């Protein structure tokens, strides 16, 4: 039954992703499409209010618009959090947020990370949940989708890169808002609350008082997954019965967060006018994903040997930190998907995963290109695709080409920087944290697992994932500042560098395809891509994985 339900969910994903990829390629097309009839009217009004014109941008203008608009959003969010205590819609009387925590929170939601150093129940007013969290949950994935569309336009040789503001608005009107409404209502039908009523007070069967926090959960829950955001309404995220009440809501949430990252390779194929280009990239990511999923599923099913030793049957798998309604299959699947799509929502506590099970989310965030978040994940795998082409070119002694354009030293420098930033901002701050009292004083689990907790926190920040080994006491100045900066570097450097690569390729002459051209639309390329991703990842991160999860596993067996 376990394997069947996992297979059905992944089958449904494929069924949705291919047509949705086609839809994405049309939704952002500058040619007239049928969609203009449906959305053009509303969009026209929005363009007028915001002063947007359909003008093409250079890569520099595009990057400037991305950074500029995000900067404004940062300040709006920061001010609301600081002053939520005196602003309206604060029925639970929550105070303004501390400056460093507010910096970390806004950086986190602006970068699509949604690392949460506060707890939703006690740290945010209803107004903040709406006008900071939900607002940024829409605009950041929209920024990511817009940017990847510009990058793809450049790589596939469209006329120009497009216009950031037009793409940003379209990502809202054509993708995120309509889907969020539908998914949100489906979730309410499963029992997710959507109310502005304050906390309910119950008298339990045993006659005690129980406070039940509720709120505008469904509206947040839908965009949290569709936008690969991942920040929960409640502290325990999608393991809370109000965020994820049934196995069906679990499946809806998995499909929601996987839909856009899984569709983008197909959209890329359509825009490259060669569907196989997208299919091979999808297949490479999907094969690595399946290996990860299998690892976490088997490891969790086998249970915790330490509990077997004290005589607790582990026949049902490792249930510490998991919910009965999900069991092992739906928990393992959720874990593999949330760190592949770098959403960071969790339906079980990753800190409690068995050592090898917990290594899976950690590894997926370290690779950071197995689907990845809305837009940015696709950019990351494209970086690796170009690297793969480059390495193959070196091996046969030819100037490498990607989609008919020469990859030269200028592009490779930027790609190399973009690829190297990710391990740098994970390993360097992890080393600092582990070497100083600032970091080690926050560790809650003794032994090798403590190393995993620290590395997980920075991997999650750098990959803009946002899940955590949540035992870590992370609301301290050190963690708020360090992870805040890592999240910002992790997001904007690679986006800007990829825009630059794309802008530079767009200007180049098309090279005619010959018999000697290295093809990127066949299974050979798929294999090379998988190899490059795994080799680069393993060379960088195996030592630290050996110190954390592998060492813990060896001591526990």
């Amino acid at each position, binding site marked *: 039954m376990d394997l069947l339900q996992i297979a059905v969910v992944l089958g449904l994903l494929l069924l949705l992703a291919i047509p949705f990829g086609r839809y994405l390629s049309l939704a952002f097309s500058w040619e007239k499409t049928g969609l203009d009839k449906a959305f053009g009217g509303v969009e026209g009004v929005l363009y007028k209010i915001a002063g947007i014109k359909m003008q093409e941008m250079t890569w520099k203008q595009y990057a400037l618009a991305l950074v*500029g608009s995000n900067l404004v959003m940062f300040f709006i969010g920061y001010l609301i959090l600081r002053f939520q205590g005196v602003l309206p819609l604060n029925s639970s009387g929550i105070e303004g947020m501390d400056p460093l925590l507010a910096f970390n929170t806004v950086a986190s939601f602006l970068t699509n990370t949604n690392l949460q150093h506060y*707890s939703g*129940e006690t740290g945010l007013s209803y107004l903040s949940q709406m006008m900071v969290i939900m607002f940024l949950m829409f605009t950041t994935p929209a920024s990511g989708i817009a940017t990847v569309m510009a990058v793809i336009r450049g790589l596939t040789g469209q006329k120009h890169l497009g216009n950031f503001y037009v793409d940003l608005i379209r990502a809202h009107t054509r993708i995120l808002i309509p889907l969020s409404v539908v998914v949100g209502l489906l979730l309410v039908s499963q029992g997710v609350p959507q109310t502005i009523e304050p906390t309910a007070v119950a008298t339990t069967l045993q006659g005690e008082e*129980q406070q*039940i926090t509720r709120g505008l959960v469904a509206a*947040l829950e839908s965009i949290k997954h569709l936008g690969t955001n991942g920040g929960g309404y409640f502290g325990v995220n999608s*393991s809370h019965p109000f965020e994820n009440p049934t196995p069906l809501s679990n499946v809806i949430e998995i499909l929601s967060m996987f839909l856009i990252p899984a569709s983008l390779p197909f959209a890329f194929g359509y825009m490259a006018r060669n569907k196989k280009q997208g299919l091979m990239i999808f297949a490479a990511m999907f094969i690595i994903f399946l290996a990860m999923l299998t690892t976490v599923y088997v490891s969790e099913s086998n249970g915790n040997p330490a509990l077997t030793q004290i005589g*607790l*049957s582990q026949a049902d798998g490792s249930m510490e930190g998991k919910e009965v309604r999900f069991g092992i299959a739906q928990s393992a699947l959720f874990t593999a998907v949330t760190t592949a799509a770098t959403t960071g929502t969790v339906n079980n506590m990753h800190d*409690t995963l068995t050592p090898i099970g917990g290594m899976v989310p950690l590894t997926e965030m370290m690779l950071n290109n197995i689907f990845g978040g809305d837009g940015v994940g696709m950019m990351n795998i494209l970086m690796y695709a170009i690297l793969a082409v480059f390495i193959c070119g070196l091996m046969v002694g030819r100037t490498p080409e990607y989609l008919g354009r020469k990859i030269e030293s200028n592009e490779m420098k930027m790609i190399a920087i973009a690829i190297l930033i990710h391990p740098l901002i994970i390993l360097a701050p992890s080393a600092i944290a582990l070497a100083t009292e600032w970091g080690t004083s926050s560790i809650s689990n003794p032994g090798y697992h403590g190393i995993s907790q620290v590395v997980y926190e920075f991997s999650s920040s750098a990959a803009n994932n946002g899940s955590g080994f949540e035992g870590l006491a992370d609301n301290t100045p050190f963690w708020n500042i360090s992870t805040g900066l890592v999240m910002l570097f992790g997001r904007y450097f690679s986006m800007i560098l990829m825009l630059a690569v794309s802008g530079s390729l767009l200007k180049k002459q098309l090279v005619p395809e010959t018999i000697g051209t290295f093809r990127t639309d066949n299974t050979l390329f798929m294999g090379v891509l998988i190899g490059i991703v795994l080799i680069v990842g393993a060379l960088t991160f195996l030592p630290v994985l050996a110190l954390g999860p592998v060492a813990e596993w060896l001591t526990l067996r």
Partner: protein
Amino acid sequence: MLKNLRVSLLLLIICGLIYPLAMTGIAQAIMPYKADGSLIVDKDGTVIGSELIGQKFTEPGYFIGRVSSIEYNAAGSGSNNYAPSNPAMIERTEIDLQAFLAANPDIKQEDVPADLMTNSASGLDPHLSPKAAKVQVPRIAKERNMDPNVLYQLVDKHIEGRSLGLFGEPRVNVLKLNMALDQLQ
């Protein structure tokens, strides 16, 4: 920069205000019970709890739910996040296991299901596996002076199957089961 401000404010109004409030309106209009949190209210209008949120049960005459480090206080949520190698988790489980065996002398150690002895993710898990409910029947039958077979049937009647017969795990809602238990007498 002015354009950035205009775009941001426009999106702030749409995504941060119109969207959540419209969603509240629609959800409240078509599914008010669920949108308010599936609250169970008795004849006098007192709220007993939520169908979806677990409650703390300690009395031996009730089915007892999973371990919760926050004692089912739904003003917050969470767990201790114990790593599988954490000695504190192993010690807690050992103590709980021995206490359970002492309170349920008819049960053999290897028949205790893992979900009963482990902390849920949310600390608010409303469910038990059917096995974990049934393993408590002999104790409750003795405590309430009831025929165990009646209780086994009651548990069977409260088993919720997999969603669409496929997704998730079969389970029993502890609060609903205990309410039905009270009504039997």
